C-alpha cells in the first residue's frame, strides 16, 4: 500500500496554508485517493499501475492547490488579485518612476530631441518588472500571472532595451519628423520593436494567456513608459516649468508611447488573433470554480 499522505504532500508542496490546515487537507485527500486506489487495485494487475491510475484523478496539482487555498482563505479573491496583479503593478510604476528620477538627475540630456534620451528609463524599468514578477511569485508560487504576464513583460522590456542599446551604437537610417521640434526615430529600432512585440505576445500565448493579456504584454514597454511619464509629470513641471513641461510631455507621449506602441502592436498582431480558452485576466481555475450543470455533466 503506497504512502498516500507522502504522495499528496509532495504534490501539494505549493499549497500555502497554515501547517495544521495543510495537514488536514493532505490527510483528507490522501484518504480519498486511498479509497480510489483500493477500487482500482481490484481491476489492475500491478500496484504500480493502480497508483498511476489513481493519481490521474487530479490533472493539475497546482490548480488544485490554488483552488483549495482560495476556498479556505477569507476574502481570497480580492487578496489574490491584489497580490498577483495590483501590488506588483504598483511596484513596477513606483520603482520605475523612482529609479528614473534618480537616473535622470545624474544624467545630462545627451540626446536632445532624440528618442534615445529615454535610455535610462528603458534601462531601469525591466528591473521594476522583474521585481513585479518576484512579488507575484512570492504571493503565490502557483500564480498563472507570473508566466502569462510578469515574466513575459520583463522579457519584452529587456528586448526593447537591448535593441535600443544595440541600435544606439551604430549609424542607422532614421525617420525624422519635422515639426516645431524635430523628432528622429531610429528605423532599425522600430523594426526590432516589431520583433519584440511579437516575442512578448508569443511568450504570453505560450503560457495560455488570454488575448487582452497578450496585448498588454506586447505593448507593455510603451504602456509602462506612458504611466511612468505621467507620474513624473509633476517633477518635470518643477524642472522645465509651465507650459513647457506639458508641451514636452505631449511630444514624449507621441514619440515614446504612441509610435513605439504601434510598432510593438504590429509585431504582436499575429499572436492576438487566436482566442484563448481563458477570457479574463483571472487565472483559468476561476472558471473551473463555477461548477454548474455543465461541469457536473461534463
Amino acid at each position, binding site marked *: 500500500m503506497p504512502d498516500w499522505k507522502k504522495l499528496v504532500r509532495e504534490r501539494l508542496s505549493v499549497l500555502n496554508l497554515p501547517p495544521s490546515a495543510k495537514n*488536514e*487537507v493532505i*490527510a*483528507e*485527500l490522501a*484518504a*480519498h*485517493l486511498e*479509497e*480510489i486506489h483500493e477500487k482500482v487495485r481490484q481491476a489492475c494487475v500491478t500496484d504500480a499501475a493502480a497508483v498511476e491510475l489513481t493519481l490521474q*484523478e*487530479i*490533472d*493539475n496539482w497546482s*490548480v*488544485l492547490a490554488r*483552488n*483549495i487555498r*482560495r*476556498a*479556505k482563505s*477569507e476574502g481570497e479573491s480580492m487578496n489574490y488579485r491584489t497580490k498577483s496583479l495590483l501590488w506588483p503593478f504598483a511596484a513596477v510604476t513606483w520603482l520605475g518612476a523612482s529609479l528614473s528620477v534618480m537616473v535622470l538627475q545624474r544624467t545630462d540630456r545627451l540626446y536632445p530631441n532624440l528618442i534615445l534620451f529615454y535610455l535610462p528609463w528603458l534601462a531601469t524599468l525591466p528591473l521594476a518588472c522583474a521585481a513585479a514578477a518576484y512579488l507575484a511569485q512570492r504571493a503565490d508560487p502557483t500564480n498563472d500571472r507570473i508566466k502569462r504576464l510578469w515574466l513575459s513583460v520583463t522579457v519584452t522590456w529587456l528586448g526593447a532595451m537591448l535593441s535600443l542599446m544595440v541600435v544606439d551604437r551604430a549609424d542607422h537610417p532614421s525617420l525624422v519628423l519635422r515639426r516645431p521640434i524635430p523628432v528622429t526615430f531610429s528605423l532599425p529600432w522600430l523594426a526590432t520593436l516589431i520583433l519584440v512585440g511579437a516575442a512578448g505576445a508569443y511568450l504570453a500565448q505560450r503560457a495560455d494567456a488570454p488575448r487582452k493579456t497578450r496585448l498588454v504584454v506586447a505593448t507593455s514597454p510603451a504602456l509602462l513608459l506612458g504611466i511612468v511619464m505621467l507620474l513624473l509629470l509633476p517633477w518635470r513641471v518643477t524642472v522645465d516649468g509651465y507650459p513647457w513641461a506639458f508641451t514636452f510631455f505631449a511630444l514624449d507621449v507621441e514619440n515614446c508611447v504612441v509610435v513605439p506602441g504601434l510598432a510593438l502592436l504590429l509585431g504582436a498582431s499575429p499572436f492576438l488573433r487566436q482566442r484563448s480558452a481563458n477570457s479574463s485576466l483571472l487565472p483559468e481555475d476561476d472558471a*473551473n*470554480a*463555477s*461548477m*454548474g*450543470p*455543465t*461541469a*457536473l*455533466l461534463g
Partner: protein
Amino acid sequence: MTKRIRPQITRGSAELAILALLADQSLYGFEIAKQIGERTNGALTFTLASLYPLLYEMEKRGSVEGRWQRNHAGRDRRYYRLTPAGRKQLAPLRQEWRAFFHALDVLAGVSHA
C-alpha cells in the same frame, strides 16, 4: 409570479447536489462523490479536484461542517454534515432549480419530471 432565477444558479447546481445528499446523512468526500455517481447512474460525476475546493468553500460559508470520525472500516475520515444554515439554503435552492427547469421546459421542451 415566477421567481427570477439568479445568475449564480449554475454554480448552485453542484452545491445543490451536495446539500441534498447531506440532508439525509453525514458523508465523507469519497462517499459524496460515489453516491452522486451511483444515484445518477454516472450522469453526474465529481472528481477529487472539483469536490474538495467546493466542500471547503461551503464549509467556509457555514453551509456544511466537517469532522473527523472513524468509518465502518475503522479508518479516520472527515465526515460532512449540513449545518442549520445549510439546511435553510436547501429549500430555496431547490425552488430555484425547479424554476430553472420550468423555464427550460417552456423554452425548449426540456422537462425535469
